[in-house]
């Protein structure tokens, strides 16, 4: 029998005992809905977690330093690879080379220095770090008070909460609740900080009078002699960050942040400058370390390996993401199993309905065989009925599961808002799940139809037609 005929007959048979078949189909829908609900919760939580990780800037960042930089993150790195003195310099060509690796989003120099800042005529000593514009979307700045830098060159600063406390002289006492960033920000925002720093300036011997020495001075003078000049820059406090954006760097983490382009243009003397002066073969800036941001945390290991192959030290918080992925795989599996239980129960409903249908339609099957239906025709007809219930139940079930998810999402967000927490979208029904759920329901239904269809096909027409 051809497929359109088969479908038509199956649908008309389903309509004949509409109540029973609807109930069976609703059973499948509930099963699919529970499966979809469970899996979309798992997927949603996973997406939420990886979104958080991406935004945190911890798990998508590799810190690359030259092996010459001896201050390594691990002992192992000291032993593997070429000896430090013979290894590559982390200069501008190297930075560009890393940037060309696949799946690398950006590579920016790590500019950080310890210097003195004056606020209200009082000196404060702290680490200053530069941030690229892309850092704006990081989690650490989600609860930022004030705003992020207005431009890449703006003489503006974002300060960390702890430093804000220091500026205001509000060091929290042990045992007490943490100070709220909302209270710290208003008196500081818009205020001025005076930063005193050491600028590296091309030596007067350089023929060029250009005032951008790192770019032009080093180009012309192979010996790269330079002077160190003390400078001052007035910075406007535009933001106070609640979280610690550089927690991964431990003791070297910055507490005051400047726009990257601005920091680069300052040519602050870096610790490497002194060491590299004896070498200074490069006509490009040399970096102590660069930060590599990857497009996808899953690729971090391959990128890290290729960077190590280039002869640099690389560090990332990789294992945490790996075990997190494992955790979610297990979670999804369990949620999937629990979700499938309802579908398994529903498939027993299909078997029951179809076996009942055989008993009820015994004579009809006999007639069909007498007028020429083959075993296979009868079998296919029952399969088609099971499959039709499966597809219909699958479609309704996906819609139902999606609706359940929306309701729970809404409810949770109402709760989060009451707790004055930002709303989260932790429920996700991707398109592949929609398709997969319907196909899965279809296949489960076909499997459930296996026994009834076989039984109907084997029915003896003489027995079935015996005059009652």
């Amino acid at each position, binding site marked *: 029998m051809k497929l359109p005929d088969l479908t038509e007959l199956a649908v008309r048979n389903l309509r004949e005992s509409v109540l029973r078949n609807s109930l069976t189909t609703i059973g499948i829908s509930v099963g699919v809905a529970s499966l979809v609900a469970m899996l979309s919760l798992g997927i949603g939580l996973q997406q939420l977690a990886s979104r958080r990780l991406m935004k945190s800037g911890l798990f998508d960042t590799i810190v690359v330093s030259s092996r010459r930089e001896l201050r390594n993150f691990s002992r192992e790195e000291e032993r593997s690879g070429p000896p430090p003195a013979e290894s590559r310099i982390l200069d501008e060509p190297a930075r560009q080379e890393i940037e060309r690796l696949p799946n690398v989003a950006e590579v920016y120099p790590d500019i950080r220095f310890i210097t003195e800042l004056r606020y209200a005529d009082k000196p404060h000593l702290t680490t200053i770090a530069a941030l690229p514009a892309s850092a704006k979307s990081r989690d650490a700045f989600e609860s930022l008070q004030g705003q992020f830098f207005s431009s890449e060159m703006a003489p503006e600063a974002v300060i960390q909460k702890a430093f804000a406390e220091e500026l205001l002289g509000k060091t929290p006492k042990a045992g007490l609740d943490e100070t709220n960033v909302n209270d710290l920000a208003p008196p500081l925002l818009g205020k001025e900080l005076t930063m005193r720093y050491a600028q590296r300036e091309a030596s007067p011997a350089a023929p060029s009078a250009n005032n951008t020495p790192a770019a032009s001075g080093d180009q012309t003078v192979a010996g790269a002699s330079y002077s160190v000049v003390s400078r001052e820059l007035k910075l406007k406090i535009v933001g106070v960050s609640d979280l610690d954006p550089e927690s991964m760097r431990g003791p070297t983490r910055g507490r005051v942040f400047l726009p990257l382009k601005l920091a680069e243009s300052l040519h602050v003397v870096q610790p490497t400058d002194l060491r590299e002066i004896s070498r200074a073969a490069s006509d490009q800036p040399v970096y102590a370390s660069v930060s590599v941001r990857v497009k996808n945390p899953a690729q971090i290991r391959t990128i890290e390996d290729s960077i190590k192959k280039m002869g640099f030290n690389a560090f990332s918080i990789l294992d945490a993401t790996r075990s997190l992925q494992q955790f979610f795989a297990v979670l999804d599996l369990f949620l999937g199993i629990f979700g499938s239980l309802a579908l398994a129960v529903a498939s027993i409903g299909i078997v029951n309905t179809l076996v009942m249908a055989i008993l009820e339609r015994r004579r009809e099957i006999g007639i069909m065989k*007498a007028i020429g239906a083959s075993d296979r025709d009868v079998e296919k007809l029952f399969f088609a009925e099971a499959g039709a219930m499966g597809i219909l139940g699958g479609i309704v079930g996906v819609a139902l599961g999606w609706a359940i998810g929306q309701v729970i999402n809404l409810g949770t967000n109402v709760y989060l808002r009451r707790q004055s927490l930002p709303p989260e979208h932790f429920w996700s029904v991707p398109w592949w799940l929609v398709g997969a759920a319907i196909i899965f329901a279809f296949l489960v239904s076909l499997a459930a139809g296996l026994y009834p269809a076989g039984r109907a096909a084997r029915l003896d027409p003489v027995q079935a037609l015996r005059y009652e």
Partner: protein
Amino acid sequence: MSATERSLQNGLPAAGAFEVQTSTGEASAIHAEQLCRHYRMGDTLIRAVDGVTLTVGAGEFVALLGSSGSGKSSVLNLIAGLDRPTSGSVIVQGRDLAQLSREELSKYRLRTVGMVFQSFNLIPSMTLLENVELPMRFAEVDRGKRDSLAHEALSRVGLQARMSHRPSELSGGEQQRAALARALINHPRLLLADEPTGNLDSHTGVEIMNLVREFNRQLGMTVVMVTHERALAERYAQRLIFLADGKLIGEEVNSAAAGQTGASHAIRDGARP
């Protein structure tokens, strides 16, 4: 002859294409040899058919007679390919049904045999048109062709006004006519009728039998009819075969029916709808 009759006739293969020669020299459509069908019911063996040998010629109208339990319906089921013999052979159109696979047997039922039953056996949830179309669905005939053929067949049995009715809305005679239309739809060579008038009053029964005879004479179909009414058999069948306890006990050529031509019969009875 109407246009519909002509087209139904044209759809048939040339008469005699599949016949085998028997010892009598007559072209035979069905030949059963030492046919047995035994059932086991508990400890007792029931010999429903017990060594029946018979031959039906192509285009012949034969009646199988006997009381209930004589095995006449079992013989018909064996010829129809609905059942398989315990031993012996049934050769229809040159093919031994005992040797066919289940799949081949269903093809045989679809293409070679048309069946009508005492209880009509129409599918209650389908309209007459759908019932008549059903065998063509199994034969994978295109929808458009199927529709026009089913219309034709129903018109032929006088049910053009009833096509969209369900069987339960029709009289017994109408249902049996629809069943006849369904039996003809795939142009079979063989019409097997199991007590076709058993559930009908005598007047309606005559109408149905006239249709059956018309198919026999005009379309050249071989007809085997099971009945327990001797009078009915004598009026229509060319040959009567008597069965008792699963055995063939006698045979009678009915010269009255055998000698008449189809055309004169159809006109004289005036029973065509």
